[in-house]
Each structure stands twice: as structure tokens, then as C-alpha cells.
């Protein structure tokens, strides 16, 4: 039944209809409010580098960490039918691990190689925690939200232990290059990283059967097992991949700030990431998924935030307005509302046909 309703409506952009409409509404709203809202200009920053600046750039730039985590979250959602609420805490751990390697070297001692090593270390740490979550979910059959509640509770404290002190700093041109801008390239680096991660996902889906297997496991775990799929492996793998995404996002966050603050690094990002997945039209109960939907979802959330800032809403109050927009979005996207609207439209249409028939009869 659901499928049938879906089919009726999927002749737009399918799953992406709602997010695309949401973006259009936001864009139009902003253009009416301030025609120059989306203007982009090439300016020079303090270091004399050419940079693109403007609201659009800051939206895309600031949503980078969210977009990357949302991509991984999509995979976990699809395979496990639940969400990882520990990504913020795990990002803090990964960020702390990243800084741990760098902090021993002075400002001059940070070389490209060392940053790479630090990043790889962060990846390994985040993958381990991902595997831990994944094992709880796949082997012990615990609901993802509950399993990741453990790391959610204590992750930031572990990050604090790794850091040793409250907020260790890192400073180096390379760190700046990752977190902000590479001299000569006018586009913020995090944006480039998002593009790279998205391409990597696309390549992984192309060169492995991950997409089909993940969806099978998510839709019907029993059937997947009987068909020889190792669901345990797929589920743990999805968490490990999310771990990598978390490490990337955490490292970007650290580079952006030039320090790691275990208490505030990517705070509350888990909620936004889950939201991005849902706004992207993915079923939070698992199964079929579209990574592109989640990326769009992330940008919608960020565009909304920046729009509100531009309307002089206090940063602490943004949440309330965000909530209203979220509710509107999900209400529009709700199958029940869709079905009702559909019925109404078809009734209107049939009414019109009857009317025109009558008209035809008269002439």
C-alpha cells in the first residue's frame, strides 16, 4: 500500500522531491527578503589570499562536517534501521587523537606527513569505536540508539582523558589550509573535502556491492542471511565507515578552530545528522537509501541556520525556529498528508472533468 502511494508520487524527483522543494523555498524566501543574500564576491583575507565570500559560501562551508557525518549516518541507518547518537562524542575523541599526535611537535615541526599520520591515527581510533558500536548492534543485537548511548554518555570524557588538558591548541599553515583555505584556491577546503568524500562514496558503491547488500540487510535481515549475506559484517562495516566519516569531520572541526575542545567540538551534531538523513527522504527504519538526499538535508539545515542568523535571531534561539521548519518539512513529507492531498487533488480533477463534460453536453 505504502509503495503504491510512493509510486504515485515518485514521478517528481522521487525521494529527493521534498528536499529540493525545501531548498527552493529557502532560496526564494531569502531572495525576497534580501536580493543580495546569495551574492558571492572574491575578496582577500587577512593573509592576502583570494577567497570567495558570501552567505552561500558560508552555508556550504559550515555544513561540511555535518554533510560528511550525514553520509556515514545514512549507511548505518540503512543497514541497521537505527541511528548512531554517539557521532558527536566520537568526533571529539577523533579530534583529540588528531591533536595528540600534532601537539608534541611545535608550530614549525608540523609537516604534511605528520598531519597525515595524525589523521590516520584519528581514523583508526574512530574506526575502533565504530567497530565497538557495530559489534554491539550486529553481534549482541542491541538497538543502535541504545548501543551508541554508551559512547554518547562517556565519549566526551574519554576525549578529555586523551587531550589531558581542557583545550590543546594546534597552529600551523597546514592546519589552516585544511580548516580554512589553501592559498591560491578560493574555495574553502572543507567544501573540497566534502566533494572528495562524496566521490569516494560513489566509487565505493560502483566498485563494490555494498549498496545492494546494505539495503538487503536493512530491509529483510532474515532473507539476507538465507541468501548468504554476512549481515554482521555489513552492519559492523557501516559503523566503521561512519567512524571514518566521523574522523574526517572531527579533524576538519579541529583544523577550523585550531584547537580541540572536548566539550564543544561538533556538539549536538548527532541530532542534526539524523535530521539530515530524514530530511533527505531516507527511511529511519532502514532499507533503501540515497546518500545525495542526506547531503542535501545537511545543506538545508545549514541554510536554515544562516538564514535565521541573517534575520538577527540569537544563536541560542535558532533551535526553536529550526524545529518549526523541521515539523513543517516532515508534515509535508508525511505519507498520510501526501495521500490526503492526492485524494483532494484527484477529487478536484474529477470534479473538473465532470464539469467540462457538462459544459460539452450543453454545446
Amino acid at each position, binding site marked *: 500500500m505504502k*509503495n*503504491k502511494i510512493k*509510486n504515485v508520487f515518485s514521478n517528481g524527483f522521487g525521494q529527493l522531491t521534498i528536499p529540493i522543494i525545501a531548498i527552493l523555498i529557502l532560496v526564494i524566501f531569502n531572495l525576497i527578503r534580501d536580493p543580495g543574500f546569495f551574492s558571492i564576491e572574491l575578496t582577500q583575507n587577512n593573509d592576502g589570499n583570494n577567497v570567495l565570500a558570501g552567505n552561500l559560501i558560508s552555508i556550504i562551508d559550515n555544513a561540511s562536517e555535518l554533510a560528511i557525518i550525514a553520509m556515514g549516518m545514512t549507511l548505518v541507518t540503512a543497514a541497521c534501521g537505527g541511528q548512531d547518537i554517539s557521532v558527536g562524542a566520537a568526533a571529539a575523541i577523533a579530534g583529540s587523537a588528531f591533536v595528540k599526535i600534532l601537539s608534541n611537535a611545535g608550530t614549525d615541526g608540523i609537516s604534511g606527513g605528520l598531519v597525515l599520520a595524525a589523521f590516520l591515527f584519528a581514523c583508526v581510533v574512530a574506526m575502533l569505536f565504530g567497530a565497538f558500536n557495530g559489534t554491539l548492534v550486529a553481534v549482541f543485537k542491541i538497538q543502535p540508539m541504545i548501543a551508541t548511548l554508551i559512547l554518547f554518555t562517556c565519549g566526551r570524557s574519554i576525549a578529555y582523558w586523551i587531550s589531558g588538558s581542557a583545550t590543546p591548541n594546534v597552529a600551523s599553515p597546514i592546519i589552516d589550509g585544511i580548516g580554512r583555505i589553501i592559498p591560491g584556491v578560493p574555495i574553502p577546503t572543507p567544501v573540497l573535502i566534502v566533494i572528495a568524500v562524496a566521490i569516494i562514496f560513489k566509487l565505493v558503491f560502483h566498485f563494490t556491492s555494498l549498496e545492494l547488500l546494505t539495503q*538487503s540487510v536493512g*530491509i*529483510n535481515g532474515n532473507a539476507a542471511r*538465507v541468501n548468504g*549475506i554476512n549481515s554482521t559484517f555489513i552492519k559492523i562495516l557501516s559503523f566503521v565507515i561512519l567512524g571514518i566519516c566521523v574522523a574526517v569531520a572531527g579533524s576538519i572541526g579541529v583544523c577550523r578552530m585550531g584547537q580541540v575542545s572536548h566539550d564543544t567540538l561538533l556538539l549536538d551534531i548527532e541530532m542534526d545528522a539524523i535530521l539530515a538523513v530524514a530530511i533527505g527522504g531516507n527511511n529511519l527504519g532502514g532499507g*533503501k537509501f540515497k546518500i545525495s538526499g542526506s547531503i542535501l538535508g545537511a545543506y538545508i539545515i545549514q541554510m536554515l541556520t544562516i538564514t535565521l542568523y541573517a534575520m538577527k535571531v540569537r544563536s541560542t534561539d535558532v533551535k526553536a525556529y529550526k524545529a518549526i521548519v523541521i515539523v513543517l518539512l516532515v508534515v509535508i513529507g508525511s505519507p498520510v498528508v501526501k495521500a490526503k492531498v492526492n485524494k483532494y487533488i484527484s477529487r478536484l480533477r474529477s470534479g473538473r472533468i465532470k464539469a467540462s463534460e457538462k459544459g460539452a453536453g450543453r454545446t
Partner: protein
Amino acid sequence: MDGKELLTMRHIKKQFPGVLALNDVDFTLRKGEIHALMGENGAGKSTLIKILTGVYQMDEGEVRIEGEKVSIHSPQAAQNSGISTVYQEITLCPNLTVAENMFIGRDNSLFSNRKKYEKRADELLKQLEIPAKSTQQLGRCSLAIQQMVAIARAVDMKCKVLILDEPTSSLDDKEVNMLFKLMRNLKSEGVGIIFVTHFLEQVYEVSDRITVLRNGELVGEYLTEELPQVELVSKMIGKALDELNSLGDPDETKKVSDEVFYEAEGLSSENALPFDFKIHKGEVNGFTGLLGSGRSESVRAIFGADKVTGGKIKIKGAQVKITKPIDAMKHGIGYLAEDRKRDGIIAELSVRENIILALQVMNGFFKPISRSESEAFADEYIKVLQIKTANRETPVGSLSGGNQQKVILARWLLTHPDYLILDEPTRGIDVGTKLEIQKLVLKLAEEGVSVTFISSEIEEMLRTCSRLIVMRDRHIVGELKGKELNQVQVMKTIAGGEA
């Protein structure tokens, strides 16, 4: 027998996107009769039932109960009009007690009067001879008991119309007889019973009247005693009778090569006791026995679908280890599971993705089947097996049961197995598809594929298998070949000492 008209449905029409499920269908149920509703899958039986129970709303037509027009807009409304349904899948809550399942949702009192409910439930269970206690958790009862609790609930609601939708498909003979006794009792009290089933014998055993539907249209209403079984089948499938016999005499084709493909010694799993088994190349054998006799559990052990706990396995004489489905698949074994919804289809994925799934898994993680290749595979098998689907990207969940089964069959055929296990491939699908599947099995065997075929309908197995392994109480109790392969002998062996 010619009681008053209890329920009349006139000119019922129901349209789904793309399908006209019911077109101008009439149905009449009289007081105190058991009325079988027959038809292939997709004939519109379940749609008609669902309209009657308030799950679907009809587009046109009217329903009257005892002459009064009623509007059935929800399951609740159906209950209030005196229509109760017992479905094939248990629609009770396993986490509540038997008594609660019988009484919940029936009144609007503020408090749930446990003591009163339990007393009444125990009385009723005793009266209906259902071996259960009112305080038991429903989830702890067997499926048969759960079904009877559902009937007891309906009985206590003083229902006028009782709909039994495939009630016998998970019951054994003894339980079926208990159910029939219950049905006859209710009939004598004036309840009208609509009986939906795939088992023809049961229709003749218990029903008074038969209504046949085909492709959403009414074929006709008949008195059971006036309609011979063969005629009923031909009305259901709308084909000439000859075709049913076109499979020919089974004995001719049953010559088997000497080469043993698969051999198991003392194989056991978490659900199956140790057993020995072997199958030759190009042989069709069958496992038979009552439900719960261990026939499905045994083949699951062969495929590694349940956790294997012991035994030696040889394939083509070489010792191998099969503990997981993927092991079996790598050795050329395919397995079509008994429970299609649970173990078979990935409902939301497309026909194409469902067809390539097993092959993809065997190819491995790093060798995905390309889009164009998979489309070619899907198109090929949609054509070969005549799968009725809008296109290859249709979600498989929206197909009819028979076509879903064909998709899964295609999935395994695509892996080109040497040994194919088909557990109840014909259950719950229409007669036409049943025949196609039986033909396919014989064709595969001719090509040298070994097949294990399980079916609840013994006749079907007699037609296809050259060897039958009979199970009782989770043990193999006999092996029938050649002349022993007849209904009487099989029944005797299944029944064992009691016969």
C-alpha cells in the same frame, strides 16, 4: 440448509492503481452454512475479505447484513456489525495473556477486569476444547492454539459472520479436525462461515457451498455436492482440464544417474536431529511428513540456514564443510525458503535487484554486477518464467505471491545451481503457477540438476519426485521409491503405527 440470507454483497468494485481488483462481484452467505471462497491468487479473494473486514474501502457496491445496509469503514465497524475474521497470520498480541487477547479492544470500560475475563476465557476454552489456560502468555502457545484463541474470541463476540482466511495452512491433521469440529458446532448455532483455503480436500470435507472468483470477477456460486473437484479446479484456473494431466505419467522420467551429488552423514542443526541423506545427480526427491515433522528443518540444515551442529558432508565424493548459507551456495546449492516473506523477498527492492541478489553475493563484495548486466539477467528471467510485473524496477513487494515466488526462483536459477532445494515453492500460489513450477522442476532434473522438493500437497510430490523421504516427529521413518510411490503408501508411512 437453505437458511435466510445473512450477508449479501452486491456489485462490489475495487480499483487499485493499475489493477481492477474486483469488478462487479456478488457474494451471498446464508445463515448456518460454511461457504468456501475459492480462486487463484490475484482472483480477488483477499480483497473481498479485506473489504468485508474494513481494511479496504470498496469503490462501488453495497453490503447488507440480515437485509440491513451496513457501512464497514474500519475493522472496528466490521466487528460491530458482527463480522469477525481469523487470519492466516496470527493477529493477536504475543506479549499479552490468552484472556487479554480474547477480550481486549472489545469494550470501553476504564479498567481491564482481569478476573472476570480470565473466568469467562477459561469457560470458553473448556467449552471449545482448546487446550490452553487463560493466564498463559499467548506467545508461549503453539500456532494452532493461537489460531483457536482467535476463533474463541470471535465466538465470544457472538459474531454472525466468521471469516476464516487460510486457517489450516499451519495446522497438522489432528488440529485441522479439531478446527472442523469447531466449525460444524458454530454452523449448527447459525453462524455463517466464510472459509478461504488452498486445500481442495478440506473444502469438500467441510463446506456446503462454493463461490469461485477469477481475475477479480465472479465465476459462479455452487453447491459443494454438485460440483466435482476437477470442475472446481477448471473453474478456478479457467483452463482445460487436460492440461492438469499433461505432465504425464511420472514413472517414465524417473531414471537417475548413479553419480551421488550430495551426501550427509549424521547432519544436525540447532533445529534438526541428526540424519543421513544423499541425492544423486539429476534426481528429484522429496521430504514429506506433517507440519513440524522436521522436513523443513532438515533441508535448512543441508543449506546451513540454521546453525549446523554436527555431521559429515560430501559433495561429489569430496568432504566439505557447510555451516553457513554462503558455504552451500559456493558448492552449488540453492535454497528457496519455506517462508517467502521472511526468508525470501527483499520487498522494497526491485525485481531486478532481487533476481541478482544470490549471484551477487556469490560473486563477492568487490565484484559488483554491472547495471547493464543485471538488467539483461532480469529481463531474461522475467521472460523465461513469465513473471508478471510492470517492469524490472518494480518493487517486488507489490507483486502477487506467485510472481514473488517466481522472482526468488529466478534468483536461484541465475546462480546455475547443481542442487536446488525448494521448500514449499507452491504454497499460497495459484494453480497455474503451481503447474509451471512442477514442470520446471522436471526440466531442471533432465538437465542434470538435483532437486529436493517439499510440498504440503502429497499429490504434487508424487507427480514430481522419484524418491520420497518420510519424516515423523523429527526422525526419518521411511523412504519410498518406485511402486511404493502412491498416496496410500505415503499416508501409511506418515501415520506410522497408527494406520
